[in-house]
Structure formats: structure tokens, C-alpha cells
């Protein structure tokens, strides 16, 4: 019971149980209102949290496979969305092959390769594969679209799993700080990122009608996002970041910094995917997770928070040369 990961599990599933109860209660009290979407969302959260905790508890290889699969689904959804050419067929195959390779480097603890594989080797290789088709028309767009997808959905997301390798167990760093194990940090990052998403949505809805709730942050890109939602999200997430010190082991100052970093980065990630979807003109990017839109809407903020949080930990607690 002293394991912080298990304590966190109890907390998360307890909260989900409360949420499920509230939704059922709402359905029962107001049968005329439509809570179907809310109920679907809650049910999806059970599945997502279940898979996540199961993989963390059982084995780190399972976690790597889970995040690799997440990368695959997100990349597939992204490729299905953007206007790629038929000439890009084989280059896309190599983009998919990069997923297991990236996670394999993580598994073998080859840190330098994890960091340079996609930004350097894949970056140089994808144009070569496109060249072999001999169709220069539209090649700049294709190169950019493929590399951007690889960076965001494979490289950035893989940093969640990368944390597991960076901090094998909880330890006291050379600077005298005690920090939680990689598992605990992954949990800390993912829970804060997801809570931030939900809190911004929740505060946005709650303060929607009020005068302060009508200031839009990005009216053209995402008209539903308000300053009130953003501020509420940042406050909630930062408070929780401090509250979860038992998990991260961070001191108060570092907890606040981590909370701010995750909430602001998560918000930006959300906006970026909104803009991408608006560019191609799609509302929900897929129907994969019931009630949640597509996979992209779930991983957009994580793609932004994961590498930043990774380097935050790496810089402040390890001072690694790279």
C-alpha cells in the first residue's frame, strides 16, 4: 500500500466511480435531458484508465507497447485526415515502421538514438523514399506532412515511455532532490495532462454564460476555448500538481512549475490540433473512442506535455549533457 502508483490507482478509480455515480444520478433525476455523451465519455475513461494502469502495473514492456499502439492509432488518424498523394504510399509505410523502431530504442535504453532517430534519420530518409517515385509535384507538402506527423505522434508521444527509462526507480538525485520512479512520473504526467483537458472543458462550460467567461482565447481556431476555461484549467492543474507530491516527490516550487508547464503546454497542443482539423475541415477526427471524438483529440495535449515534462525532469534533476 506504500506504493504511490497503487495509491494513485485507488484515487483515479475512486474518482471514476464517483463520476459514474453522478452521471447515473443525473440521468435518474432529469430523464428528459440528454446525458448520453457524458455517459459515453465516462465509460471510455474507465477503459482508457484500465489499460493504462494495467500496463504500468504488469511490465514496462507492456507500457511501451501501449504507447507504441497509441502512436500508431494517432498517426493513422492523422494520415487519414491530411491530403496525402498516392505517390506517398511507400514513404508512409516507412513512417509506420519508425514506430516500433523508436520504441525499440527506448526499450534498449539507447538514449541518444531515441533523441535523434526521427528528427535526423527519418527526416533525411523520408524525402529519399519520396524521390524514388519520381513525382516532384507536391513533394514539399508531403515531406512536411509526413515529418510533422512523425514528430508529434511518434517522437513526442514516445517521451511518455522514455520517462520510464530515464528514471528506473525512485532516487535521490545528485542535487539532493528525491524524485519518484519513472512509473510514478508517467502517471503524474498523464493524470495532470488529462485532468487539465477535462478541467479546461469544465470551467469553460461552467463560466460560459458569465461575462468573464466570454473572452475567447482563439476565436477563429477554437471558438469554444475561453480565457475563463484556460485560467480555471491552469489553476486546477497546478493545485493538483502540488497535491500529487507523494507521486512525483517534487518540492513545492518544482510542483508549481510542473503544473504550469503541463497546463499551458496541454492547452497549446489542443489548439494546434484544432487548427489542423479546421484546416482540413473536420469536426471530430474519428469515431474511435465513443464520446471523445477521435484519438487525436485525446493525445494532442499529451504530445505537447510529454517531451517538455521529460526535459524538465532531465534538466532540473539530472542535468544531462543533452
Amino acid at each position, binding site marked *: 500500500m506504500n506504493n504511490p502508483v497503487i495509491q494513485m490507482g485507488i484515487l483515479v478509480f475512486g474518482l471514476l466511480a464517483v463520476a459514474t455515480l453522478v452521471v447515473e444520478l443525473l440521468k435518474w433525476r432529469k430523464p428528459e435531458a440528454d446525458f448520453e455523451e457524458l455517459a459515453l465519455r465516462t465509460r471510455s475513461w474507465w477503459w482508457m484508465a484500465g489499460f493504462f494502469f494495467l500496463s504500468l502495473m504488469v511490465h514496462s514492456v507492456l507500457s511501451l507497447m501501449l504507447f507504441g499502439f497509441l502512436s500508431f492509432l494517432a498517426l*493513422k*488518424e492523422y494520415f*487519414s485526415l491530411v491530403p496525402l498523394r498516392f505517390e506517398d504510399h511507400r514513404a508512409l*509505410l516507412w513512417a509506420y515502421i519508425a514506430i516500433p523502431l523508436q520504441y525499440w530504442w527506448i526499450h534498449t535504453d539507447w538514449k541518444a538514438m531515441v533523441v535523434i532517430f526521427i528528427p535526423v534519420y527519418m527526416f533525411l530518409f523520408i524525402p529519399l523514399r519520396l524521390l524514388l517515385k519520381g513525382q516532384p509535384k507536391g513533394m514539399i507538402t508531403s515531406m512536411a506532412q509526413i515529418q510533422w506527423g512523425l514528430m508529434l505522434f511518434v517522437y513526442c508521444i514516445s517521451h511518455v515511455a522514455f520517462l520510464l527509462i530515464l528514471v528506473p526507480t525512485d532516487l535521490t538525485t545528485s542535487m539532493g532532490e528525491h524524485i519518484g520512479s519513472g512509473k510514478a512520473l508517467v502517471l503524474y504526467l498523464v493524470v495532470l495532462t488529462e485532468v487539465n483537458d477535462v478541467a479546461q472543458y469544465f470551467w469553460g462550460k461552467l463560466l460560459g454564460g458569465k461575462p468573464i467567461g466570454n473572452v475567447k482565447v482563439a476565436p477563429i481556431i477554437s471558438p469554444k476555448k475561453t480565457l475563463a476555461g484556460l485560467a480555471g484549467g491552469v489553476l486546477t492543474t497546478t493545485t493538483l500538481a502540488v497535491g500529487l507530491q507523494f507521486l512525483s516527490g517534487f518540492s513545492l516550487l518544482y510542483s508549481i512549475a510542473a503544473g504550469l508547464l503541463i497546463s499551458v503546454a496541454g492547452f497549446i497542443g489542443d489548439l494546434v490540433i484544432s487548427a489542423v482539423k479546421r484546416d482540413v475541415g*473536420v*469536426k471530430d477526427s474519428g*469515431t474511435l473512442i465513443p464520446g471523445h471524438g477521435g484519438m487525436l483529440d485525446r493525445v494532442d495535449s499529451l504530445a505537447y506535455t510529454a517531451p517538455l515534462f521529460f526535459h524538465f525532469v532531465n534538466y532540473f534533476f539530472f542535468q544531462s549533457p543533452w
Partner: protein
Amino acid sequence: MRHINNQLRILFFIFFIKPLLLVLVGLNVFGRQHLPSKPFILVANHNSHLDALALMNLFPLHRIAKIRPVAAQDYFTTSPILNWFSTVLMNILPIPRKGITKTNNPLTKMSDALDQGYSLIVFPEGSRGEPEVMESFRSGVGHLIQKHPNIPVVPVYMRGMGRSLPRGELILIPFFCDIVIGKPQHFTGERPGIVQSVEAAVKKLEEEHSQMFWEHDNI
């Protein structure tokens, strides 16, 4: 032999086609409630070898033996391996495209299959053609529907398979694919009119599909 083939086909769908379509490709199916429980003629646009597999996969395994995709004899029965694959595992109804005689007539073959209680999957474009481009329907399907006015026609629109596995490519690339199933209908009247109506029914699903996804409001 037929019994063993049916078992083989079911195993092929459970262990190969279902994981392939579910995990690697990723299908979004709309209008599943329109799938008829009785024999039918399913009419769909055609972009990829995945099309027939994905359509058969919509039905419960015990019904697959009674569903036959109509396919070109000259293409699918040329090599022994392809022949075995398409006749045993896919249970295709091979029809001739050239050298048509009284005994070797595509319409008679399809009609006989319907009389024997089989359901048919028909691609009236006649070929996969350019990836993700719908071509005009050929007239054969009109003859068939006119001859069997009591069998419901199910229009289906598919999108994405032509990106995953287009004509001329051997390697499947994962893309999410959509299948939109329309209400079963009965078409009567003159043959050219039937062909036009069926084509219009599939085109209408294409429009509905684009409205489902390509809306700018409310992101």
C-alpha cells in the same frame, strides 16, 4: 469438401481478416442497422481488393458462406494460388468479361446464384479504376435487378480503401476507412432507369458521408 471450405473461410476471417480490418486498417461503419437479414444484392463503389473482404466482414460469420462477391473470371482465376484464394477463401462468383456465350453468361450465373439463395456483392463500376474516384455504373446490374424485383438492393458507399491498398500496390498502408450502408430498396421499371437510380443511391450516400465529416462549424 464444401463443408471444409466453409470452416477454412471462417478461420481465415477470424484470424486474418478481422484483426487486419479492426487493428491495422480501422473501419468506421455507419448504418449497420440497414443490413438485411434475408438474401440481398449489395451494390457498392469499388477501389481496392479490400472492398469485398470488408463488406463480407460486416455480416456474422455463419452467414458468410451464403454471400458471394461477383468478380472477374479473367483476373481472379488466372494463377492457381489466386484461384484457390478467391474461390475457396473468398467464395467469389467468377463471371466472364470477354467471350460471352449462352452458356458462359455473367447474368445467368448471377441469377442462378440468387435463385440458389445466395446473396451477391456487386461492384457495377466493373473495375477498381483510379483510386478513390467513382466511375459510372455499367448496365449489367440493371438486368440483374430487373430480373429479381423481390430481392432488396443495399446501396453502400466506401471511402479510404483505395488509399490503403490501391490498384497496382501490393503493400497495405493503414488508413481509417469508412463504410456507409444505405436502406435496402426495391427498384423497378426500365433497365437504364434502374442503373441510374442505383448509382444515384450510392452517390447520395457519398454526399451524406461528406456532410458527416466535412463541416466547418463547431470545431
